[in-house]
């Protein structure tokens, strides 16, 4: 069994990732949303690095470095750049207010715990406890996408889901084969770039990034 310090380190970082997800839901400014996302990715990279250190699996180091490089630095920079160019309003427009959102997310976290319970029992890796938290982060990301109006905040919700997924991958199986991880990173990067380009065009056409304006296509 892993020593107490190791387990605590891993679990502490996993808790930090989930905490960052909640902080994202509570953010009321776009800039703080992006920064909290960067924090979450940083914690995730640190988690991957500590798993790599504790298990001696070298390829996870590369993945950790990629997480920090792409998700914690490159993507937040890119998103801030896009928001600056488009002159996005600073407020995160919410459909559901903060206290209610936070309580709903707490409920989702409990749900994730119950769903993950049978999976955790079967696990053999030291990080299996983080599976419940990962599912929680995925659900919270999904909720964020549903309950926010701005296009950019929906994208960050999607990226939060991807973070949760990555943590699930680490907590279930110490990550997936390197090629797959690389491909996934590449996909996420291209996705963000495409979304950024689309956001530019949307802003040029609709003069705003509020997705509730996009209601033209109906029966």
């Amino acid at each position, binding site marked *: 069994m892993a020593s107490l310090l190791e387990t605590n380190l891993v679990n502490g970082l996993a808790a930090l990732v989930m905490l960052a997800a909640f902080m994202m839901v509570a953010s009321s400014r776009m800039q703080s949303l992006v920064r909290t996302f960067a924090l979450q990715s940083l914690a995730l990279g640190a988690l991957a690095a500590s798993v790599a250190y504790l298990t001696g699996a070298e390829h996870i180091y590369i993945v950790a470095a990629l997480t920090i490089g792409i998700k914690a630095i490159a993507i937040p920079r890119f998103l801030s750049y896009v928001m600056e160019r488009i002159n996005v309003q600073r407020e995160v427009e919410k459909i559901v207010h903060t206290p209610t959102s936070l309580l709903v997310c707490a409920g989702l976290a409990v749900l994730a715990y119950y*769903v993950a319970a*049978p*999976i955790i029992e*079967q*696990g*053999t*890796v030291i990080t299996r406890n983080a599976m419940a938290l990962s599912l929680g982060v*995925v659900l919270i990301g*999904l909720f964020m*996408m549903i309950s926010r109006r701005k*296009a950019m905040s*929906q*994208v960050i919700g*999607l990226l939060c*889901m*991807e973070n949760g*997924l990555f943590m*699930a*991958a680490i907590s*279930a*199986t110490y990550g*997936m*084969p390197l*090629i*797959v991880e690389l*491909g*996934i990173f*590449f*996909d996420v990067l*291209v*996705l963000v770039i*495409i*979304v950024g*380009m*689309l956001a530019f*065009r*949307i802003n040029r*056409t*609709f003069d705003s990034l509020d*997705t509730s304006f*996009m209601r*033209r*296509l109906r*029966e």
Partner: protein
Amino acid sequence: MLELLVAIPIVSALLCYLAGTRRAMEVCSALGTGVLLAVSIALGVQVFGVGAIYEGTLFLDSFGAFALVIVAFIGLMTSLYSIGYMGREHEEGEFPLGRLRLYYALLNGFIFTMVLVTVSNNLGVMWIAIEGTTLASAFLVGFYNRETSLEAAWKYVIICSVGITLALLGIILAYASSTKIPGIEATALDWTTLMNVAPQLDPTLLKVAFIMVLVGYGTKVGLAPMHTWLPDAHSQAPTPVSALLSGVLLNCAMYGILRLHLITSASIGPGFSGTLLLAFGVLSLAVAAIFIILARDYKRLLAYSSIEHMGIIAIGFGIGGPFGVLGGLLHMLNHAVTKSMLFFTSGNILLRFKTKAMEEVRGLGTSMPLTALFLVLGALAITGSPPFSIFISEFTVVYGGLQQGQYIVVGLMLLFLVVIFAAFLWHVLRMVFGNGAKDKERGEVSRSNLAIIAAMMIIAILFGLYLPDFLGHALDAVVHLFQGAVP
């Protein structure tokens, strides 16, 4: 050998992007897709004759070869059709040459991602390819840069990415279900490996994995209730792209679901995954029926019809047994051919009438007689009338259903098919008959387009009357794969 296959569309995409003149682009694209089709058929012959080709991360078995040939064929047809259609729009000044170059490059890139889906062994690489299809087609959907195109592209990217993220969770769980089995660490994400150790996989994890993959890839397939992006994306995209999306992309996403269905069936029997497929299939049929009645835009009408047919495919595979699977497979092929043909026909209408609203298209029979003929025949084909191919595949599914005792499902399916038949023909016949506006020019829009449509129509009738031997053998091999998977 398989690397060569994957490299062909990438090379043609590059060449198209570097091409100088419009003629060069068109030739590059057409040649590229033609060569792709030739190589695919050659590989298919080898697979069906000799056996599966296994090259580590890339892998081609009978099912893969079947899907690959469909992709390549529709890819070629779309390339040829684009010459006429996009060429015409460019001449009318809709967009400059630079955008046309981007179009052809993205088109071939899109085909590349779909080819990669059909030949990947590693589930993770398959996921990357399916996500790649969303990314490659995002700008194709939003090609016209109009408000509606952008809205469609946005919904498409966001909803499909959410779905695919959930599917990735499913794949992670599938990978996790194999961790207790020693010795397969390095290739545990390979489909071949997972099939070999299927009985030893953890059932709970696998079940959850299948549900996530069904919901996730099902979003890309357009199964209800995750279908909301489909009508927008398929109607706003340029017509050749709509044909590719409806005809082939949905097939590729279904391919992904079915690969996991095979693993789950080998592990815990086909009952669990089959029932889920049935449920989503029937729901998709119901939703499609309702919206086909309400449709007011003919491209959206065709998009809802795609949802309907994907539902039928899901029902076919959900029913299982030799006839259910055969019906599902045949339907994948027939739907691809027929739906593409219908989209091409609607492209002709769009070129002339410049509007997608069915209200404003009247008197097609008098102004564009050949197109109107193909439209009516296509409508009959897509709704399942004999002597067209769709009738045969739907009949096979129904037969399989009755054989397996799924009376309720078959009853519902027939009910919805009848409703869709009535509604679809009502819409189409209103467009064809009657007096059109007096000031519309008469005469067809593009001879070459019509030739392509005619060729596909012939295929549809051909397969409706008679199944060629090679196709029969091929289908037998794939059905055997599905049957053999059951422990």
